[in-house]
């Protein structure tokens, strides 16, 4: 079970607004939606922004519907839809439970970068390369190889936590990184770390070993 009390890393207001108004691509929307599921503070702000969007919708410029639109609308209410039993959706990934909003999410099979790290890319043909979202699992005690980013990266911790320089992050926290950062996060304590990561550009390894492994990492 994911416990995400005491969250310190939140969604930036501009990102939250874009999410609420229906912007951003699929991978980024998933990560923001998942954080909202875990973070009451951001959920309340999103709710407030939704109210504002509702107000703006009410003030939208009207464009008349076609002549028989109301007849079509009323006719559609007559169509009886057969209620199908909901499929049992998986809400775990390789033994790790997921927040309810991720229930049924599809991934490609995980691939290991050594025995202590795996990546499972979220399936979505709609994400234009090189943007991608993926689950990242790192075993307790491990440290990632030093790397930077070609663009922006958003990480949401689902289980465990990690230390990055002077800062420590825990379940529910959102962490933003960009091309200005060179870092080598280290998993905290004795709990494995599972994250949801979105990046809109590939990572840049800063060591020879990292560069050697990059083709296998596929991120």
């Amino acid at each position, binding site marked *: 079970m994911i416990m995400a009390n005491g969250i310190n890393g939140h969604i930036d*207001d*501009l990102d*939250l*607004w*874009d999410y*609420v*108004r*229906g*912007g951003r691509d*699929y991978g980024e*929307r*998933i990560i923001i*939606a998942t954080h*909202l*599921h875990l973070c*009451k503070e951001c*959920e*309340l*702000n*999103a*709710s*407030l*922004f*939704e*109210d*504002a*969007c*509702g*107000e*703006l*919708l*009410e003030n*939208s*410029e*009207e*464009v*008349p*519907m*076609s002549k028989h*639109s*109301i007849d*079509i*609308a*009323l006719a*559609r*209410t007559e169509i009886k*839809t057969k209620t199908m039993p909901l499929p049992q959706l998986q809400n775990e990934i390789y033994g790790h439970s997921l927040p309810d*909003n*991720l*229930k*049924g*999410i*599809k991934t490609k099979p995980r691939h290991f970068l050594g025995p202590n790290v795996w990546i499972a890319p979220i*399936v*979505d*043909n*709609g994400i234009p390369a090189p943007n991608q979202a993926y689950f990242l699992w790192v075993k307790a005690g491990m440290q990632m190889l030093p790397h930077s980013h070609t663009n922006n990266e958003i990480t949401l911790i689902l289980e465990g936590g990690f230390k990055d320089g002077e800062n420590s992050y825990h379940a529910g926290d959102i962490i933003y990184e960009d091309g200005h950062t060179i870092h080598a996060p280290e998993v905290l304590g004795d709990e494995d770390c599972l994250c949801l990561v979105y990046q809109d550009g590939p990572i840049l390894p800063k060591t020879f070993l990292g560069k050697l492994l990059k083709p296998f990492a596929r991120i």
Partner: protein
Amino acid sequence: MLEYKIYGQMPFMASIDDNASDASRPFISDEELIISIAASQDRDAYRELFGRFAPKIKGFLIGRGCTNTEAEDIAQDAMLKVWQNANQFNPTKAKASTWLYTIVRNLRTDYLRKQNRISRLKNEYVEEPNIAALQNEKIVQSQSAKIVREAIEELPDDQLRVVRLSFYEDLSHTQIADALGLPLGTVKSRLRLALEKLKSLRSDSGEKL
């Protein structure tokens, strides 16, 4: 506890198409219409709600770049969802326009993803999760409509312009900066100030909104 009358049971609504003047009818709120739909599958209430919202939804979607046909189709789908899910609407938690907005937004993002998927589909079919099911559709706490409306109206013109371009025209920060001839940082700070103003409603009201 709020009490709502059932729209279709009101004598004056025996026929919504009668010649009664608008002035002779008490105003029925959007929320009451949805409750009436939920309570008694009230087609008159649905017709009224459709008339109020479908043209706005269509206008909103055309502003977001949909064609006339796409906008009309999504507006139809949104209103059908209102009919089908009216019993899930809780007026103590969300205003009707907020609830409708989230329906429209989710339909639109789902539609765009499907379009994108079709254009990218090659020889293999990969089943994808439904974004609408993944999105956080839970509305925690509705804000007082009047307070939110006033907060928007009280935004300085320069901030309101950025908010409107972002919402109605679906422009990115960079596109807004280009459209207004402003530095990107200025656009971001104006939008941030507007959002701060909205967020301050929570602290101003002691989180009671």
